[in-house]
C-alpha cells in the first residue's frame, strides 16, 4: 500500500486524505465521464470508495481515479482569450456540407 507512486502526501496535513477525481464508464464503448470527487488515502482505496460512492446504482462498468492535484486547469480569467474568439466563426462547424441521403447519422 505504501509503494503507491501516485500518492505523495508530503504537503498534506496528517489528518486529511488527498482529493481524487472520479471518472466512470457507464457502458463498454463509451468514454469515461467525470462524475465527481472523493477523499481517499491512496489509489487502491480511492477505487474502492468510488465504487461505493458513485456506482452503487449500476452506473458503471469501469472506474478511473486521478489525484485532483494532477489535473491542470485553464484559468477562468483567461476565458476571453481562450474561448470567446470562436463565437463568430461558424464556418468552423462542418454545417455547410450537403450530405448524401444514404448517410443517416452524422
Amino acid at each position, binding site marked *: *500500500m*505504501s509503494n503507491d507512486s501516485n500518492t505523495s502526501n508530503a504537503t498534506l496535513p496528517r489528518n486529511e*486524505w488527498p482529493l481524487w477525481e472520479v471518472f466512470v464508464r457507464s457502458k463498454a464503448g463509451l468514454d469515461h465521464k467525470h462524475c465527481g470527487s*472523493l*477523499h*481517499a*488515502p491512496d489509489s*487502491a*482505496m480511492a477505487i*474502492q*470508495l468510488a*465504487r*461505493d*460512492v458513485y456506482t*452503487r446504482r449500476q452506473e458503471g462498468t469501469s472506474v478511473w481515479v486521478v489525484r485532483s492535484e494532477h489535473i491542470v486547469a485553464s484559468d477562468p480569467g483567461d476565458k476571453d482569450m481562450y474561448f470567446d474568439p470562436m463565437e463568430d466563426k461558424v464556418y468552423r462547424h462542418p454545417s455547410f456540407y450537403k450530405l448524401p441521403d444514404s448517410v443517416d447519422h452524422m
Partner: protein
Amino acid sequence: MTTPSITVSSDPQLQYLLRLADTCLIHAQRLAEWCGHAPVLEEDIALTNLSLDLIGQSRALYSHAATVEQRLTGVARDEDAYAFLREERDYRNPTLVELPLRRGISGPAEDFAGTVLRNLLVATLLKQVWEALSAPGGTADAELAAIAAKSLKEARYHQQHSADWVVRLGDGTEESARRLRDALQRQWPYVAELFESDATDAAAAAAGLGPRMADLRAAWEAEIGAVFTAAGLTRPKSTPFRSTGRQGVHSEHMGFLLAEMQSLQRAYPGGVW
C-alpha cells in the same frame, strides 16, 4: 397492541438457512449503526452499502426459508415474519455478529478498528460459505446455489475492503495498530463458535444442503492469516470460551438489538413503506 411472535420449525434444513440469514441480518443491523457516524463521508457510504448488501442477502435467504418451511409444515410466511417476528431464542446467528459496534448498553463498544476487524472476520466467513455453496455440487438446493453465486460477488468486495482497512490500520500509526490489536483480543474468543459442529450442521451436510462450518475453517484461517501477516497482527491463542448464539442462546446485547430492530413491525403489524 403488538404483533405476536412466530415459532418456526426446528427442521435442520430450515435452521441451516436461518443461521445464514440471521448472520447476514444481524451483522447488517450492527453495521448500520455507523450510518451518519463514520470517520469520513466516503467510508460512511461504504459501510452503509455493505449493510444493504447483507440485508439483501438475508432477504433472499428468508424468502427461500419461507418456501422450505411451507413445504415442511404448510404454514406460509414472508421474509418480514422471519426478520421481525421471532423471539430472541429463535435467532441463530453466531454471537460475534450481535456484539455492539458503535453503541454498547452502557457507552461506546467497538471503535472503527473493531468495526473493520469484525467485518473482516465475518466477510471472510461468508465468502467461504458462498464459495462452497456456489461451487458445482456445493449444494443440492438450486435456489441456495443461486443466492450464493449472487452473494459471492458482494462478499468478495466486503472481504477485500475490510482486509485493506485492517492492513492500513495494523501497518499505520502506533495508535491505529494498538486499537486493532485490542479489538482482536476482544473479538477472537467469539471466533471458535463460527466453526463449531453440531447436529443441525451435520444433518444439513448429510442431506447435501451445504458444508459443515468446520469444513471451512482451514480456508478461513489461511485467508485471515495472510491479512494478519500483512497487518502485523498475531493470531491470538484459542480460549476455552464458547459463545452459543447459533444455538439461540445469545449475549445480553441481543435483546436490545432486537427491540430496536423489531419495534416498528411489532407496533404496526404488516407495515410497509
